[in-house]
C-alpha cells in the first residue's frame, strides 16, 4: 500500500493541467468568450448610433419574434424574420440534399479510380477552394445573369426567346452555395469510400442483390458516417451563409447571415443582431442533433 502514503510532488500532480493550459486558454478566450459577449449583448439596450447601452432589456428577444406596428402600435408577429429563418433553413437543407446527390457519385467515382489517379481527382475538387469566395460567387453571377453565359447560349440555340431570370432568386443562392460547399461533401464521403471494402459489393452481388440494392443495402449504410459528416459540413455554413445570398440574392432575398449583418450595420440594433445570432446557433445545434440522431438510428453502434 505504498500509494497511500506516497504524495506526488506538485509539479507531477499538476503537470498535465500546466501542459494543457495554452490550449484551454485559447478555447475559453476564443470560443466561449465571444459567445458569452454575444449572449450578454442580446440582453442590453440598443444605442442610438449603434453599439449598446448598458441597461438590461429583453426588447431584442421580443423583437426577434414579434414587431410593433409603426402606425397604430399594435403587436404583430415578426413574419419577416420568420420568413428569413424559414428561407435559411430551407435553402440550407436543399443545398445539403443536392450536394449529397452530386457529391456521392463524385466521391464514388474518385474512390474507384486506380490509387495513383485519385490524388489528381481530389486536387481538381480542391482547386476552387484556393480562389477567393467572392470571386467565385461573382463567377457564378456571370454564368446565370440575364446576359450571362447560360442565357446567351440558350437564346443563341433558340431554346428560349427571352432570358430566364435566374439571378436574384432562391435558385441562384442555392446554386452558389452548392458550388461553394460541394467539396465539403465530397471529402468525407471520399474518405469513407476509400476505406470501404469493395469485396462487400461482390458479396452482395453474389447474394442476389442487383446494382440498386447493393447501393441501397450495402454501400450507403456502410459509408453513412461519411455522409453524415459531409451533410453537417455543408449544412452548418449554408445556414449562416452571408456572401452568397448577398451577391446572388441581390439583398432582397436575405438569409439569416444577412439579417444579422443588417442589425449590426444599417439597422443599428446590436442587441437584436446578437439575439438573432443566438437563434441561428440554436437552429444549427438543434438540426444537427436531430439529423445525427435520425441518421444514426438505423446503423447504431458502428462507424
Amino acid at each position, binding site marked *: 500500500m505504498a500509494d497511500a502514503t506516497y504524495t506526488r510532488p506538485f509539479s507531477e500532480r499538476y503537470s498535465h493541467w500546466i501542459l494543457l493550459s495554452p490550449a484551454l486558454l485559447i478555447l475559453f478566450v476564443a470560443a466561449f468568450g465571444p459567445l458569452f459577449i454575444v449572449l450578454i449583448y442580446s440582453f442590453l439596450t440598443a444605442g442610438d448610433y449603434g453599439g449598446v447601452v448598458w441597461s438590461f432589456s429583453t426588447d431584442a428577444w421580443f423583437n426577434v419574434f414579434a414587431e410593433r406596428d409603426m402606425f397604430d402600435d399594435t403587436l404583430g408577429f415578426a413574419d419577416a424574420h420568420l420568413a428569413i429563418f424559414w428561407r435559411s433553413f430551407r435553402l440550407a437543407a436543399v443545398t445539403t440534399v443536392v450536394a449529397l446527390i452530386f457529391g456521392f457519385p463524385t466521391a464514388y467515382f474518385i474512390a474507384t479510380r486506380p490509387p495513383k489517379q485519385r490524388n489528381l481527382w481530389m486536387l481538381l475538387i480542391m482547386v476552387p477552394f484556393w480562389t477567393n469566395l467572392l470571386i467565385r460567387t461573382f463567377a457564378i453571377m456571370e454564368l446565370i445573369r440575364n446576359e450571362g453565359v447560360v442565357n446567351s447560349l440558350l437564346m443563341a440555340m433558340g431554346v428560349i426567346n427571352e432570358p430566364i431570370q435566374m439571378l436574384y432568386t432562391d435558385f441562384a443562392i442555392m446554386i452558389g452555395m452548392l458550388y461553394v460547399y460541394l467539396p465539403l461533401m465530397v471529402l468525407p464521403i471520399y474518405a469513407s469510400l476509400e476505406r470501404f471494402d469493395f*469485396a462487400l459489393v461482390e*458479396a452482395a*452481388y*453474389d*447474394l442476389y442483390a442487383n446494382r440498386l440494392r447493393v447501393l441501397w443495402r450495402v454501400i450507403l449504410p456502410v459509408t453513412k458516417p461519411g455522409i453524415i459528416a459531409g451533410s453537417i459540413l455543408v449544412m452548418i455554413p449554408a445556414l449562416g451563409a452571408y456572401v452568397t445570398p448577398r451577391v446572388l440574392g441581390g439583398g432582397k432575398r436575405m438569409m439569416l447571415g444577412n439579417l444579422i449583418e443588417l442589425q449590426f450595420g444599417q439597422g443599428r440594433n446590436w442587441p437584436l443582431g446578437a439575439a438573432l445570432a443566438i437563434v441561428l446557433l440554436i437552429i444549427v445545434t438543434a438540426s444537427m442533433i436531430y439529423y445525427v440522431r435520425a441518421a444514426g438510428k438505423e446503423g447504431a453502434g*458502428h462507424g
Partner: protein
Amino acid sequence: MIEIDGVSKVFGSGVQAFTALDNVSVTIRENEFFTLLGPSGCGKTTLLRTIAGFNAPTNGAVRLDGQDLVSLPPYKRPVNTVFQNYALFPHMTVAENIGFGLEMLNRPKAEISSTVDQMLDLVQMTAMAGRRTSEISGGQQQRVALARALAPRPKVLLLDEPLSALDYKLRKGMQVELKRLQNETGITFVFVTHDQEEALSMSDRIAVMNHAQILQVGSPHEIYEHPSERFVAEFIGETNFLIGTVTQADETQGSVALDAGGNIVARLPQGEGGMGQVTVAVRPEQATFCAPDSGEATVSGTVSNVVYLGTDTHFHLTLDDGNPFALRLQNTPDNSVQQKVGDRIGIAIAPGVAQVLKD
C-alpha cells in the same frame, strides 16, 4: 454439373496482357467436393471467380446443368461464394448477414427467419445471432460466411481459400466441418486452396493447376500416388525423382533402367507409354531399406542424415551417383532405428509402385 469448356481469361492487353486461364476445360460433378489446387497466381481463383460471375471469360463457356452461365450477372446465378476474407456486412448482425441472400430473393419473412435459424444451428452460431460481425472471432466469422452462402441453397458453393486466415487448430476443425456440411447439404462444393494437405484431406477430386492450366484431375489417391507430371509430384507431398530409360513396356507398366544403377518396374502415364529417357517419381514412404548391392536393392547409397519425427523417421540418403534420395520409415514401439549416418545401405522399391512421369 458444371462444365467449364475451353475457358480462357486474359487480363489487360498488348504488352501488359496477362493470361490467367489458358484454354481450361473440366467437368465438376453433382454433389462433389471439388478442389482447385495450385500455387498462388496459377489461375485457380480466376477460375472460381469466372464461375461466380465476377470475371467474364475471354473465351469459352461455363454451363451449369446445361444452362449457360456466362451471360448471367452474378446476382442471377444459383451459385454462392465464401470469400477469402469473408466479406461479411459490418452494418448487419450475424442473423441479418445470413438472411441477406434470401431477402434479396424476396422470400417471405417467415421462411427467411426459419432458414436463418436452421443455418445458425447448422454452423453452431445460434448464441451469436444478434451480434455484430465485428464482435465475433475469426473462426466464428468463417462460420457465418459459410451459413450466409449456404442459406439460399445454391446449386454450387464456391469457397475461395476460406481457411487461410485461421490458425492451424481452427483450420483442422473447419476442414472436418466443411466436409460434414457438404455431406449434409448435398451441395456441390468448389474449393480453392494452395494447401495440398487441405486438398487431400477433404476433396472427392482435385484439379492441380499451374501457369493458367489444369495439369491433372483425379481423386486425392490418384493425384498423390500417380502424379502425371513433375509439377504435380513436386507440389503434392515429397518426391524423389530418378532418371532412367524405359527398356520394356506393356499397357500400364514398364521396366526402367535407372542411371543410378538397377532396374525398377514402374507405372507408365496413361496414353503415353513412350520409350527413351524418363523421370520416375518415388514417394519417400514407397521405399524400404535392404542389404546394399543385393538382388533386393533397386539402388544403393549412404545415409547422410537421420531425422526423428515422432510417428516416423526421415532419412536423407546420397545415392551412388551422387543424387539425394529421401526415405521415410514408420516408427513402431519395438523397432529402433539401426541405420546411422555414414552407413552404406540398399533401397528397395516394390514393383509397380513408382510412377513414370509425362515429360
